């Protein structure tokens, strides 16, 4: 009897402590998510109550060349950026795991791009990319690598690449830190034993280092893949999805359709169209995390 009351009491306390969390998650995440799905099946615009239109928004988008372009851009943007970030992050982690003077300082310093506000670094890059007075064109023309200044953010052929470069600069330290934490879990004796057995540096890297950090690499990649996939601010500040709607991704195109063209229902459909792919990435993350804990 007494123990039963104890269990009841534990339930009550448990629910009580977790209740603010639940209220916020359901009220400001679950409910709006349901609304979002509903809106995507309506023709809601500003000031008008939407009417149910079935799959019309989705059908419209399948024939919308700008939407298809945004979908393609999102895949390129996320894929290329994450790939480079993983490589740069790996180099950074291996470097910071060495012993050298001032290591603690550099561990903090190389993390700075990820810590400073995106608005500040995005504006700095925008200014570096400036076609007339920007430093990048100045250096490239001085070195005679290019003859005419390049409009990094308004030339249709390089704009997406310019945004990717900035994204990589801002995001690689996150990979570096996660991988560094992973490297620190490798027992030092393993390397010593391998060395006694005459293993080469390449073999040690392949069979010890990579083996130990494969899961942190995956976790960091999937997480940053999801972030990059959902990215709004960096593209919006640098190009606003231009020139000629050429650098839109799912997030900025949602904004364009919902708030510029004022088609709220169709805007939701833009966002939801990518949900299955996002769902797959999240599923992947859970599988990896599950493996990692056991």
């Amino acid at each position, binding site marked *: 009897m007494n123990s039963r009351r104890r269990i009841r009491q*534990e*339930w009550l*306390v*448990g*629910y009580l*402590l*977790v209740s603010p*969390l639940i209220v*916020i*998650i359901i009220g400001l*995440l679950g409910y*709006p*998510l349901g*609304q*979002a799905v509903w809106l995507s099946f309506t023709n809601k615009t500003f000031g008008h109550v939407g009417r149910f239109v079935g799959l019309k928004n989705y059908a419209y988008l399948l024939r919308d060349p700008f939407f298809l372009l945004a979908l393609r851009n999102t895949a390129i943007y996320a894929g290329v950026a994450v790939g480079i970030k993983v490589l740069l992050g790996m*180099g950074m982690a291996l*470097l910071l795991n*060495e012993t*050298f003077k001032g290591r603690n300082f*550099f561990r*903090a*310093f*190389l*993390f*700075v791009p990820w*810590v*400073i*506000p995106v*608005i*500040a*670094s995005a*504006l*700095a890059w925008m*200014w*570096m990319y*400036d076609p007339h*007075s920007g*430093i990048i064109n*100045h250096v490239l023309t001085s070195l005679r690598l290019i003859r005419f200044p390049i409009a990094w953010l308004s030339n249709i052929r390089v704009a997406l690449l310019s945004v990717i470069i900035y994204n990589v*600069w801002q995001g690689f*330290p996150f990979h570096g830190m*996660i991988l560094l*934490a*992973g490297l*620190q879990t490798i027992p030092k004796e393993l390397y010593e034993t391998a060395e006694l057995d005459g293993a080469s540096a390449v073999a040690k890297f392949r069979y010890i280092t990579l083996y130990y950090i494969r899961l*942190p690499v995956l976790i*960091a990649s999937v997480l940053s893949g999801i972030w990059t996939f959902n990215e709004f*601010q960096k593209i919006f500040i640098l190009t606003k999805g231009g020139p000629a709607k050429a650098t839109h991704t*799912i*997030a900025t195109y*949602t*904004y364009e359709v*919902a*708030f510029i063209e004022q088609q*709220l229902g169709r805007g939701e459909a833009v966002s*939801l169209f990518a949900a299955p792919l*996002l769902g797959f990435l999240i599923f992947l993350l*859970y599988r990896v*995390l599950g493996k*990692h804990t056991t």
Partner: protein
Amino acid sequence: MRTYFLRTRKQRRKVLTYGLLSIYVLLVAFPLYWMISTSLKSPREVYQRESIWFPKHPSFVNYRDLVTDITRPFLAYYRNSLIVALSTTIIGVLISLLGAYSITRLRWPGKGLVGNSILVTYLVPVSLLVIPLYVILKGLNLTNTLFGLFLTYLTRTIPFCTWALMGYLKTIPQELEDAAKIDGSGVLSTLFRVITPVAMPGVITAGIFSFVLSWNLYFYPLIFIAEKEKQVLTVGLRLIVGGDTIPWGTLMTAGVLTMILPIALFVFVQRYVVTGLGAGAMKG
């Protein structure tokens, strides 16, 4: 001489390390340098070739103008950002800590479901939620208010903080808590007197994460705040400069002032972050 210098493996490794380090440092430092040096140039110097690498006559005139010019509500944006970021951080971390403790340490039906789905809620894209949240805030009369921003910012910070804190709390041995319970300590006092001090690196990581994230949020204020005076820094930075030609000196100055706070915070707690981030990511 050179072959002698690079003869041993140890020396080669050293050279490789410092070479790689220089590349990384240059890569990270250059945009920061470019921002700071531009902020110290006069409006005319910004566009002059002779002063492109560093200001010939460095001055703080941009800083003075930005802070004193009352037609530019820079300080108001700064204050608004500070209010929203601090309240989101303090309340958000508290809610997350209570939740994470309840999920990892107390037994109640349904906790498995909550614990497993918490991270998913963090990964729901902002672009999906921004339209319905706008409709909800409009209905509650909370558009154009900092309180509305605070509420919606919480949904971005709480899921990750709870997840990270769960990871951290799992690393704290149960015996610590049992000892406190035997001494007759209640749930809340166990949490705040026994667990929290040990979990401080995790709590600080969650706090820094919340602050940096809230300081950074862009999409929500862009949609929810229409009145210029109520705006926060992220969106406001572009509003302080009107017109077609961009005064880069002013903008870079605003950028430097915007990043000072997160950097200072980071320097202050840097040693906790690496352990906290590590524990959160490694222990799942």
